[in-house]
């Protein structure tokens, strides 16, 4: 075992959360070593993987990202790591994420809805779930910083902003143009009393930003933006290195080591040759995402921490959350036309709020703007048409079908739990096992609220056919497994995402979120990361 000790702060994971923190520390003159489980892969190679994938597989976001044997991430049935997540329970916590340098924002859509003040006070306002340990105003400046760091575009008209309250600063860039389908959808839902507003999104709008080019409508944000107009954390790695960060790829951290004071002394990683290495440091940040972070903590149990690191509360790996979603695939008489501009570009957020939240979940509705050829071509061909009739059918099905997605909030529940499976991966490390039930709060919403609204929208669109997904799918927003709270007995981290149990261990990101709301949550993870970074800087400078 080799001991390496060459940085004050060791950051595990080079996803958006790890990268944001690392850069703040580097800017404050603190040395940083980043350990990244996966390989470092070029954008060109990922784009090539996408283009060379069979049409029938292009909808599987993991196809462009074949996992390294030592850093498996969940894939579709043919991707080689289909059973990496061991799933049980009435609903399936089938996530996807990417274990490559740069992490899962490689294939995120970039949708960046903030929480509302109410979203952070579910217990006090509606008697359900948990309140956050601080209020919206505390988070607000960090949201603004995160939006400037990632480059979020959004509307300047306050009526079109989310949440509807004064912003500290305008968005750094204006909103992007709508596709014909988005324009039509916006008009139609307006007649029903709903506002479909431009999404705040991590995409360069009309101008370069952050040394990245302007979006030019490649409509491929998921699984990969070919030009880097969408923020992804991989775009920051070179800059971090220029600022002095050391980034070690193919380094799978498998153990967190404590010392006699129960502080973190070192972490251990395996390389692709299955050799173990030890890395010491003064302070440690685990930013391996909402699923791999709790897994690593549970894997690292020792005599002082028999339930796992940071787990005196027994809450590590519990309260696993996401945004359970249902899709309505509608066929319309008139053409809508999606597939111009980014893949998600607008949404109805106001349906996520209301007094009904004491009874059931809210929901956010979005009109997916993916080019639809890949979804309809096989079905059109199956009809056996040829010539003009075939051309017309493909064109009709591409233009006259649309996916409306209802994404729900979910409450933290201790039984929605990640544990270590007795099955192991290529390195011999335990696979994550997750038990999941979306719960009555979500099911009731689908029954009495979200699906009725969705059907009303579909009818107003002139739908001749509506297919509703039979089960809740995951939105890939992994939250809750290292939950934040003021009480060390029922939460894992404090308001800075510092472990209650180990004062030199930070666990920032989605795991800390105490409520999910309905909107995609990475911008909240990013805001929490910046808040952690400030706390780490002052702690390292001796103020803590």
């Amino acid at each position, binding site marked *: 075992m080799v001991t390496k000790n060459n940085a004050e702060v060791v950051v595990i994971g080079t996803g958006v959360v790890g990268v944001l923190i690392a850069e703040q520390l580097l800017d404050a003159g603190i040395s940083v070593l980043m350990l990244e489980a996966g390989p470092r892969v070029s954008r060109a190679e990922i784009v090539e993987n996408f283009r060379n994938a069979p049409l029938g597989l292009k909808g599987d976001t993991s196809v462009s990202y074949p996992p390294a044997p030592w850093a498996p991430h969940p894939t579709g049935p043919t991707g080689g790591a289909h059973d990496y997540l061991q799933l049980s329970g009435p609903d399936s916590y089938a996530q996807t994420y990417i274990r490559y340098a740069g992490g899962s924002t490689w294939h995120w859509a970039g949708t960046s809805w903030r929480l509302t003040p109410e979203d952070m006070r579910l217990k006090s306002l509606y008697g359900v779930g948990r309140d956050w340990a601080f209020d919206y105003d505390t988070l607000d400046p960090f949201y603004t910083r995160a939006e400037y760091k990632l480059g979020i575009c959004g509307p300047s008209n306050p009526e079109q902003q989310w949440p509807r309250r004064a912003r500290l600063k305008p968005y750094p860039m204006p909103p992007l143009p709508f596709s014909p389908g988005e324009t039509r959808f916006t008009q139609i839902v307006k007649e029903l009393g709903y506002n479909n507003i431009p999404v705040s999104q991590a995409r360069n709008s009309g101008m370069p930003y952050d040394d990245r080019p302007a979006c030019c409508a490649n*409509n491929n944000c998921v699984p990969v933006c070919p030009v880097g107009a969408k923020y992804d954390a991989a775009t920051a790695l070179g800059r971090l290195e220029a600022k002095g960060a050391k980034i070690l790829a193919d380094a799978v951290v498998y153990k967190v080591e404590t010392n006699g004071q129960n502080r973190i002394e070192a972490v251990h990683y395996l390389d692709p040759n299955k050799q173990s290495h030890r890395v010491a440091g003064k302070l440690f940040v685990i930013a391996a995402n909402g699923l791999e972070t709790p897994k690593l903590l549970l894997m690292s149990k020792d005599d002082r921490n028999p339930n796992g690191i940071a787990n005196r509360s027994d809450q590590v790996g519990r309260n696993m959350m996401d945004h359970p979603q249902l899709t309505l695939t509608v066929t319309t008489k008139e*053409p809508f036309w999606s597939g111009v501009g980014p893949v998600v570009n607008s949404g109805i957020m106001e349906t996520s709020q209301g007094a009904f939240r004491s009874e059931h979940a809210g929901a956010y509705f979005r009109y997916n703007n993916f080019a639809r050829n*890949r979804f309809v071509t096989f079905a059109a061909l199956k009809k*056996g048409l040829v*010539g003009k009739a*075939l051309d017309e059918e493909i064109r009709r099905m591409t233009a006259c079908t649309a996916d409306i997605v209802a994404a729900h909030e979910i409450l933290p529940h201790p039984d929605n739990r990640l544990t270590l499976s007795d099955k192991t991966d290529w390195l011999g490390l335990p696979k994550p096992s997750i038990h999941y039930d979306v719960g009555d709060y979500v099911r009731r919403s689908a029954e009495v609220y979200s699906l009725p609204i969705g059907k009303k929208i579909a009818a107003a669109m002139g739908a001749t056919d509506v297919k509703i997904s039979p089960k809740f799918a995951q939105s890939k927003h992994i939250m809750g497994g290292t939950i934040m709270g003021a009480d060390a007995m029922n939460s894992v981290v404090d308001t800075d995402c510092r472990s209650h149990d180990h004062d030199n261990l930070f666990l920032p990101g989605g795991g800390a979120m105490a409520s999910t709301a309905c909107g995609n949550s990475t911008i909240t993870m990013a805001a929490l990361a910046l808040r952690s970074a400030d706390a780490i800087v002052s702690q390292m400078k001796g103020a803590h």
Partner: protein
Amino acid sequence: MGGFLQAHFDDENATRRQLSEAKMKLPVSRRRLLIGSAAMAVGYVALSTSPAFPAAPAAAASGEALNAKFMRLSNLLINHRLSPAVGARIAEGAAADHKDMAAMMDQIIAIAEQKQARVVEDFFEDIPAGPAKEFAHWVIFAWYSGVSSPKPDAKVFTFEEALTFQTTSDVVTIPSYGLSGPNLWSQATVPLSQMPRF
């Protein structure tokens, strides 16, 4: 990046391997280009009822003859301009799966010629149900979808040249290929009836 991914692809991503093999095996010779464009002109402009290649060069490799015949067939089955390079990849994929491909092509072409077909609608109904008709459907499938089947292990012949995208090229992006300049893609809706020419 490390050698792993390359090795990984070579071992596991058959599609990718087949694609690169196809590329390697099919250097575009000048003659092929000429034959290809001849086939294209015949197919698109006139869909001539006279045999496209009355005197295929005697020295032509059987692969080339097969490709030429395949393009002739494709131009009968599809009323659009077709890329000979894509055609060559589809032909190779077809030959691997259909041993009696040459005979089926002859059969279908003969029916079209007999009907003096100008477009596929003129003769498709006349192809009797059975292997030749299934093959004709498959050829159309391959050109429109760019793949050999809807399955995950399908052979990939093309992505961006798959004809499905041509039917909507006036509005819809081919994913990963930029459509316009920064924020210049606002556009009014277009009617279904305005089929792009391709």
